[in-house]
């Protein structure tokens, strides 16, 4: 009799434990993927608060490796011709060089692709130009099914990944399961994206005492930092904020009327119309054309916009100066120097880092 009750208890315990785990997909009880700390640059460590890494998606060696493979693999797109990297290419600091991005069917979207770096420090976790994507994990689901991007659907992609010769094993290593889901694919992509850290520009080295700036670059920095000159720092940061963006949404005076509502299209609040996320001014040497619709081909055009080209509208940010005169009215010398300073924030080593390239 005693034995019976013991058996029942054992059985019950067994049922309890198994029903909590992921059925038969839990292959290897003892296995854990290898934790991988983010390689946080000293200037980030010293100056800003730690990056956002969701507790349900810790960085691992195997997860990042899987994410990287997925990022470069056209298997995610409808006709298997386009990868994330098609619009987010390492040689362009993970954006592309066209104003609007070309999807697999040759249809162009309405927005300029965005460079991908230092994404783990976007503390509000609002991604895309208009903030519509609420985390990197959720963002990664979107391009695959976007009709003007990879124009696929996740069911097909999961089928392809599941029957592939390599992916099931890579998913097992990364997440200890061979049941491939879009959520796991997105987690892996997000892990890879969080490793894309750029902090090795001339300006970083200047701050670390390992490079010197020319008088022109120093004057450009002053134009950027002085409220009475360019006043760029209120939105694009300062030497104590190595992100060089506030990751907040502003209308920087591009248009008097809006064809793309930006943040307003997401919140439904008309006072958000025409607001877009301030981009980081790192790596501008590689990320032309500029702005959410890629309207400016060169940095000269960008600077002319802030100097003379502002368009007034009801939602223009009050940090825009001298709107009635078109902008901050920089001299030709100041414009050239501002450009020279901006370019000191470009990091060539980021483009060729073997951890990031295919």
């Amino acid at each position, binding site marked *: 009799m005693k034995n019976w009750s013991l058996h029942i208890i054992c059985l019950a315990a067994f049922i309890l434990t198994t029903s909590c785990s992921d059925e038969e997909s839990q292959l290897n009880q003892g296995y854990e993927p290898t934790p991988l700390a983010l390689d946080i640059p000293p200037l980030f460590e010293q100056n800003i*608060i730690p990056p956002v890494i969701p507790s349900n998606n810790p960085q691992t060696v195997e997860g990042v490796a899987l994410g990287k493979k997925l990022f470069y693999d056209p298997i995610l797109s409808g006709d298997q011709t386009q990868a994330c990297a098609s619009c987010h290419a390492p040689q362009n600091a993970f954006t592309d060089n066209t104003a609007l991005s070309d999807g697999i069917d040759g249809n162009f979207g309405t927005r300029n692709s965005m460079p991908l770096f230092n994404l783990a420090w976007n503390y509000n976790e609002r991604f895309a130009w208009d903030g519509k994507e609420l985390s990197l994990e959720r963002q990664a689901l979107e391009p695959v099914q976007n009709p003007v991007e990879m124009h696929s659907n996740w069911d097909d992609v999961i089928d392809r990944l599941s029957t592939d010769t390599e992916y099931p094993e890579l998913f097992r290593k990364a997440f200890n399961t061979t049941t491939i889901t879009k959520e796991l694919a997105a987690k892996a992509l997000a892990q890879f994206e969080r490793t894309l850290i750029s902090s090795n520009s001339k300006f970083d080295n200047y701050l670390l005492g390992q490079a010197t700036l020319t008088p022109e670059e120093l004057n450009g920095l002053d134009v950027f930092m*002085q*409220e009475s000159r360019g006043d760029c720092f*209120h939105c694009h940061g*300062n030497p104590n904020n190595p992100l060089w963006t506030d990751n907040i949404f502003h209308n920087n005076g591009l248009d008097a009327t809006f064809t793309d509502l930006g943040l307003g299209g997401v919140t439904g609040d008309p006072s958000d119309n025409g607001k877009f996320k301030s981009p980081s001014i790192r790596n501008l040497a590689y990320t032309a054309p500029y702005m959410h619709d890629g309207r400016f081909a060169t940095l000269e055009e960008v600077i002319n916009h802030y100097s003379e080209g502002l368009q007034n509208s009801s939602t223009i940010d009050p940090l825009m100066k001298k709107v009635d005169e078109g902008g901050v009215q920089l001299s030709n010398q100041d414009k050239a120097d501002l450009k020279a300073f901006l370019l000191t924030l470009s990091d060539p080593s980021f483009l060729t880092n073997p951890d990031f390239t295919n």
Partner: protein
Amino acid sequence: MKKMIALLIVLSISFVSCGEDNDDNIKASAKTTFNFSHDWDGTAISTLDFENTAYTNANGEAVTMTRLRYIISDVTFTKANGDNIVIDGYKLVDVTNGDLTYNPDIEIPTGVYTNVSFTYGLKHEKNIDGAYTDLNSASFNVPLAALGGGYHYMQFDGKYSNTTVTDAPFNYHNIRAVNPGMPPVFPNQETFINVDLGPAAISNNTTFEIKMNVAEWFKTPNTWDLNTLNQVLMPNANAQKLMNENGQNVFSLGSIN
């Protein structure tokens, strides 16, 4: 089953300990919370009012707010014998985004205090360039090279209209007064503000409501003329002095609970 009982015990203990605030025990120390509320001459301001509601300032302009955030620091409890207990820390109050509560980590001894006060802004010795990672992350810095570095005390951006202009921008940015240059020169005056809230008896965890009447920034003693003082006020030491004078009356104690 043993585990179950242990769990129940743990649970009941934690329930009991949660109820501690309400029992009759005299506490030796208590937590303090500071809630900041904002109004325009008595009309409450909420996040929804930003970029929506127009207020009339003392000079007669219609003002809408786009962004309002400011620092308070060094909350201080003064005893009858003059001793001070200073909560060494600061809070960036972000009115635009409804981040209005300061919960200092440390507890203060219970008892009767003759005054509770705080610093609006940062005292000079605390206003250290780049020292605070959360404020750097919020891009609240003041440029180092020409304006002396440190942090904004307040960033108040908005637009104003009157008979001659419509929705003209203003940046009422309050910092340590400075005469810009290389190197910048700091005039002798302070532009942070010591705010006295008056006496308080603290016997238990206590919440202070602190009110800011935003209209006061434009009102007393200097009727603020946005037509002349609208943008680029950071390098304007005289404007900083006027802000400091007007700031003396913006804060008041709401309630103590």
